[in-house]
């Protein structure tokens, strides 16, 4: 019996039999072989999982049946997530509205964000020998969660590092200046994928302690360095537009270089390059997909496994990739929107000219 007799969509599973031995057998053929040998499996009373249930049609169906058979179970599945998502959205909106008036709300929100990050990591990772929060090694973290994690750590760590590199490159001390320049130009000179490969394969050669370091952490470090180098150049562009007269006035007032940089140079320089910086962050968000080549399975990697690896989902490649394209688009657009609002809220030089 051929596989595609059972399978109307004719996706062509390879099925070979040589000397009575099946070489490449499709899942259906294996199931049939099992039934031949062991008999029918017992009926089990349980709700069929999405993965077990094949929602493909045989023959034409009406639109109503399409909705009820294929679409509504999906809604049933996502209803809890939908409720949680709506609750989070309302929560965020409330914080935004109340935060405009009350300073305590803003402070509480900021503190929660800062504290939430390690808390989330701990909850995700879990503890050994725990039933409530079992240990989940970072190698199995995946999907959108991993993408978000890499992006957030990348953004948070690369921003101060990039600013520091930019300031260092403009320093008067030759040692600082040349170190920063060499770092920036080296990192900018190689593709991101080579940095990630180096982090995974080559760095452990030189530094044996580091091979114990979690792969996820190594990837974060690689992404951070990459993003910081590009950010440094963007910020350096902003630093160059500060008129020298303001620096002279600051010197005449007695402000030392640290105060001048903190209160006069950086506020203006960073506001001027907000589009470039947020653009770099959006780019970073999408560059996280490269870790799939290195062995971590974030959003693109997971989808790849599902549609290429699991035969039952192989017909749905187009749907899957279009879906993650939409996800990437939504998040990237949200970041662009934040950029626009940041620029509009700027004080002084940007707003009143």
């Amino acid at each position: 019996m051929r596989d595609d007799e059972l399978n109307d969509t004719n996706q062509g599973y390879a099925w070979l039999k040589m000397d009575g031995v099946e070489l490449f057998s499709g899942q259906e053929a294996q199931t049939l072989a099992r039934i031949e040998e062991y008999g029918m499996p017992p009926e089990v009373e349980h709700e069929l999982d999405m993965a077990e249930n094949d929602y493909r049609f045989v023959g034409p169906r009406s639109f109503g049946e399409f909705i009820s058979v294929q679409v509504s179970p999906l809604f049933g599945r996502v209803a809890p997530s939908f409720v949680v998502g709506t609750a989070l959205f309302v929560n965020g909106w409330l914080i935004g509205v109340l935060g405009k008036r009350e300073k305590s709300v803003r402070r509480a929100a900021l503190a929660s964000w800062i504290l939430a990050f390690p808390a989330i990591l701990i909850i995700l990772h879990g503890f050994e020998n725990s039933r409530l929060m079992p240990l989940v090694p970072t190698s199995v973290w995946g999907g959108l969660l991993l993408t978000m994690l890499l992006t957030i750590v990348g953004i948070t760590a690369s921003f101060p590092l990039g600013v520091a590199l930019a300031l260092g490159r403009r320093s008067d001390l030759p040692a600082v200046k040349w170190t920063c320049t060499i770092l920036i130009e080296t990192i900018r000179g190689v593709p991101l994928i080579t940095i990630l490969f180096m982090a995974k394969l080559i760095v452990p050669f030189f530094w044996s302690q580091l091979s114990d370091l979690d792969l996820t952490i190594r990837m974060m470090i690689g992404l951070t360095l990459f993003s910081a180098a590009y950010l440094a150049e963007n910020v350096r562009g902003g630093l160059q537009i500060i008129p020298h007269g303001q620096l002279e006035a600051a010197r005449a007032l007695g402000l030392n270089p640290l105060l001048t940089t903190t209160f006069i140079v950086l506020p203006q320089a960073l506001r001027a390059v907000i589009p470039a910086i947020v653009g770099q962050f959006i780019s970073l968000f999408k560059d996280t997909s490269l870790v799939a080549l290195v062995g971590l399975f974030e959003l693109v990697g997971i989808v790849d496994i599902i549609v290429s690896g699991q035969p039952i989902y192989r017909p749905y490649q187009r749907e899957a990739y279009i879906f993650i394209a939409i996800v990437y688009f939504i998040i990237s657009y949200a970041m662009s929107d934040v950029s626009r609002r940041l620029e509009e809220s700027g004080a002084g030089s940007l707003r009143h000219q």
Partner: protein
Amino acid sequence: MGENGGRSDEPIIFCEGVNKWFGNFHVLKDVDLEVAPREVLVIIGPSGSGKSTFIRCINRLEEHQEGTIIVDGIELSHDVRNIAAIRSEIGMVFQQFNLFPHLTVLENITLAPRFVRRQPRREADEIAAQLLDRVGIPEQARKYPAQLSGGQQQRVAIARALAMQPKIMLFDEPTSALDPEMIKEVLDVMKELAESGMTMLVVTHEMGFAREVADRIVLFDEGRIVEMGTPQHFFDNPQHERTKLFLSQIL
């Protein structure tokens, strides 16, 4: 380190043999000058004569290669502490105002007192309000510099310099970038400042101000001091040919 400059016979600024080069260009040639406390010194001269460079040397915005500059008993050398001490006693007002555009007027004025002198915020705000009153624009405290006219911006710059309670004020062509109708308001502030006893070095082209307010006028030409004297001496009885030529060109 700092001596009391209150006695009028002890110069608060003492320059001797000051020479400066920009590369090969000899911009200041053997400048000798003494400024007494509470004196208003107006420096005039053609452009490129080194007058701006000279006053910028006094608070180390430019570095002189030869000669001695002593401000309030402190010698201006490479020692960073000396430079910081001298800068804390000198306030400077620039031709291009150089206000910080991302800060409000009040924040512009209180930035240095709060973070260099560590004044508490409330005290710094009060002093700033008094200074804004003194220069005539108390209502502009919460605005940004870009929202003010040129004359108002320059007055804010004067208030900002005064907030550090300097003993000496340097003015580098304060009205040269202003529209004519706004020059008077700034000059009035400078006149009030002079009358209140501040030591001032003013580089300007405003001859009316020089005649009315200056204690002494100094003519710079090609890096040298050509003539120095009271306004009466200078305008009515100039000695040097160069002075006569310059005055004939501008008056």
